[in-house]
């Protein structure tokens, strides 16, 4: 029995050391990232609120919101740069890229026009869901 233990111990210790390396690879929570993401949430909410107010009128057309979309694009690029600077952060980076892609699709969708408040609300919910999922992951990271 003692001999068996003696043989097993190095394997166990090696496993533990490898485990420790894995455990240390978790990305850390980033306060600044959290703040920037919250700011983007505000920009997106404002965009949808503005479109909703003018829905059915020419003021709801895409060309009146080009600046807002551009500002969100810039904020998302800054957020991606921030995420990229954190080690072992591939999941968050992927999420931010997905949100960028969704905002591009939202712009294309806006160019085609929104017909009613329900479809606008549905798209707003989907974009918010992405922002929330990014935040959920960020808040789960060790501090």
């Amino acid at each position: 029995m003692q001999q068996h233990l003696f043989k097993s111990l190095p394997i166990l210790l090696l496993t533990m050391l490898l485990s420790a390396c894995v455990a240390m690879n978790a990305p850390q929570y980033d306060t600044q990232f959290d703040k920037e993401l919250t700011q983007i949430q505000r920009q997106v909410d404002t965009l949808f609120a503005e479109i909703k107010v003018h829905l059915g009128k020419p003021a709801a057309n895409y060309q009146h919101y080009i600046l807002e979309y551009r500002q969100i694009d810039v904020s998302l690029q800054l957020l991606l740069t921030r995420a990229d600077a954190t080690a072992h952060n591939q999941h968050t980076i992927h999420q931010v890229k997905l949100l960028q892609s969704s905002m591009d699709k939202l712009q294309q969708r806006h160019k085609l026009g929104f017909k009613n408040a329900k479809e606008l609300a549905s798209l707003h919910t989907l974009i918010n869901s992405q922002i929330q999922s990014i935040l959920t992951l960020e808040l789960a990271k060790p501090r």
Partner: protein
Amino acid sequence: MKQNLSVKTLVQDMTSAFLGEVKEGVPAAKKHVQIELQKIASCIANIEALAAKGKITKQQAKLDLQIAEDAAQSTLIAATGISEITVAKGLKAAMGVVTGLVNTALGWRLI
């Protein structure tokens, strides 16, 4: 050198600490997947209803579905990331619970 460490005890202690950290993670991940697939299915059903009334174009429908897929993917990535973080915490807890025992038995600081 006398062997003070019991593999059985170490594994028991580490397993207990690990499971204490990760036990909530697995059912939560499954729930996330189900919720997201439900959202995509609802989006498709909604598109079908609007298409039947001629209230949505093919291009609009495709974009709506793509945004729904992005949202689902993002949520599932979060679930994956949280699972990994939970596993990392579990391993850390497993290491922590045997640190004193291992270091004392060796007579030097391994962990």
